């Protein structure tokens, strides 16, 4: 306690010098705090996702074909579904389309175009001048076509209100959207219409399994995968795999890890430089206060007392720097959060780590100067003015 007062007093006496010395610690700790916050935030968001995934007893399998003609390969067949439900532990199997598009042929007065058709996902997908009611009506025969389709079918004339043939049905063009490319849907219909007319015979490239309660989800899904790989109807035309919801996160984690290493390096270097600065300032302090050390020693302070006094001062100096660093790190995290897809969080654990690291720097780099103070010859100390 006495040492703490002495330390604070001495630090306050040389405010500027000590603030500059702390700068390295401040930068180092701020980096440590912010990178830990990003890491922790990321881990928390993953755990949340995984928790969702783990809590459910659902697994999904995908089929990816090697063939270029998407429509000729169905992916999972009803036979495959039956096969999979036979596996021990599988409660039910539901087939669905992973990608909601269908290859279609459009024609208008002898002009034709081959492209993909899909359902409107959100009403915001369509052009703004199209009435939302049209897009939500499941019985409508309304379509929105992309600029490229419009060019193919109508050239330079207007497309709005014109009838086009899709498969065997006639549709009315209600709008032209800006977007659309070779691979995504260039023709949009309402969800209901898509389901009613096109979805019935679309590819089933996704199988959603429900696992019986109490069964090992991983084991069961592996058994299913093995079975479908051996017996699936279209096994020769494509590949089956278990969907991993954490896959995209894993690649992000890789990026995060390299960022972490970089920031850790920066933090490490700045803490090292800070440590050397602390050592330097402690050497100065000790030599400036030889008289004080001599007086304290003469009046009963042991060498250990003196060492502890200066060690305390060095640690307090670093911890103050650490606390400022934590505050700066907190501000940095507020800024970082504006650019992150998840929320970086500062945990108690990372604050403790920071305080521990800064105390360790103080202890480590304060030791030699403090020891020097403790070991100085008493007669020599008292001779000085």
């Amino acid at each position, binding site marked *: 306690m*006495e040492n703490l007062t002495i330390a604070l*007093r001495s630090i306050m*006496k040389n405010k500027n010098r000590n603030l500059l010395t702390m700068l390295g610690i401040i930068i180092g700790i701020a980096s440590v705090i912010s990178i830990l916050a990003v890491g922790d935030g990321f881990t928390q968001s993953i755990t949340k996702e995984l928790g969702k995934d783990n809590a459910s007893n659902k697994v999904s399998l995908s089929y990816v074909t090697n063939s270029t003609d998407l429509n000729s390969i169905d992916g999972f067949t009803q036979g495959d579904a039956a096969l999979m439900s036979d596996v021990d532990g599988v409660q039910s199997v539901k087939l669905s389309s992973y990608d909601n598009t269908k290859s279609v042929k459009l024609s208008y007065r002898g002009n034709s175009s081959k492209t993909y058709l899909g359902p409107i996902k959100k009403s915001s997908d369509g052009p703004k001048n199209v009435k939302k009611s049209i897009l939500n009506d499941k019985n409508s025969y309304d379509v929105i076509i992309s600029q490229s389709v419009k060019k193919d079918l109508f050239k330079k004339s207007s497309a709005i209100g014109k009838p086009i043939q899709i498969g065997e049905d006639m549709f009315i063009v209600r709008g032209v959207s800006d977007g659309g490319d070779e691979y995504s849907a260039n023709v949009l219909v309402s969800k209901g219409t898509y389901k009613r007319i096109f979805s019935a015979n679309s590819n089933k490239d996704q199988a959603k399994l429900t696992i019986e309660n109490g069964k090992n989800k991983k084991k069961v899904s592996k058994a299913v995968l093995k079975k479908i790989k051996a017996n699936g109807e279209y096994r020769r035309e494509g590949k089956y795999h278990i969907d991993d919801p954490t896959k995209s996160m894993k690649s992000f984690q890789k990026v995060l890890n390299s960022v972490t290493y970089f920031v850790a390096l920066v933090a490490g270097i700045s803490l090292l430089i800070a440590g050397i600065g602390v050592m330097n300032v402690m050497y100065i302090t000790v030599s400036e206060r030889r*008289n*004080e050390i*001599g*007086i*304290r*020693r*003469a*009046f*009963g*302070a*042991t*060498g*250990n*007392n003196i060492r502890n006094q200066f060690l305390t001062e060095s640690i307090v100096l670093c911890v103050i720097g650490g606390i400022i660093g934590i505050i700066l790190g907190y501000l940095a995290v507020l800024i970082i959060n504006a650019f992150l897809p998840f929320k970086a969080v500062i945990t108690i654990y990372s604050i403790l780590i920071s305080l521990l690291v800064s105390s360790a720097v103080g202890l480590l780099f304060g030791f030699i100067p403090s020891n020097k103070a403790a070991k100085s010859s*008493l*007669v020599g100390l*008292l001779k000085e*003015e």
Partner: protein
Amino acid sequence: MLKVKNVGKTYANDFKALSDINLEVPDGEFLAVMGPSGSGKSTLINILGLLDNDYTGDYFLKNENYKNKDDATLSGVRGDKIGFVFQNFKLLSSYTVYENIEIPLIYSKSKTITDRKSVIDEVIEQVGLQGKENNLPSELSGGQQQRVAIARAIVNNPNLIIADEPTGALDSKTSLEIMNIFKHLNETFNTTIIMVTHDQEVADFAMRTVHIRDGRLYENEKSVVSD
């Protein structure tokens, strides 16, 4: 209470600062050590004050030999049994009068924090510095600063006070005041005082005077170790 036997001190450069010093100081004595500069006075009182442990011979304090004791023991004895007064006061300039006097109590094992204030108030009164508790040394005169130093030396109620030219930086009037304080301490509390001085007037306050010349001790100008 204090006995020095065949003490010698040779510095690294082969300079013999002290040789064959034999000295006995009974409890309650006020001893003056005189001698020209460079004679070994300071070396002797550094040994007597347990500030210097690098010497030959033996040193008994209250019948205990303090030769070759470890730092913790020596520091403990310095803190609890010995008080120092230096020529240039040696006060901490950024500490108040009160805080300067408090220093020995910080390291003393015998006083708890709670009775610090009453002890300090008492010694401040003894040296006549009431009302100056919160002043910095720079705000005091030389004589007042030396009173602070004396208060600091006696705050732990030591058996022995070692004073190294306590009036060396003071004018003669102030010197007399300071010497009267020492005399009072010696007479009232039976505190043993060993004082180094080169001022005969100051030495006259002591009961006995010894002289050091070229590292040897003489009593009344006569060698104690007559060979």
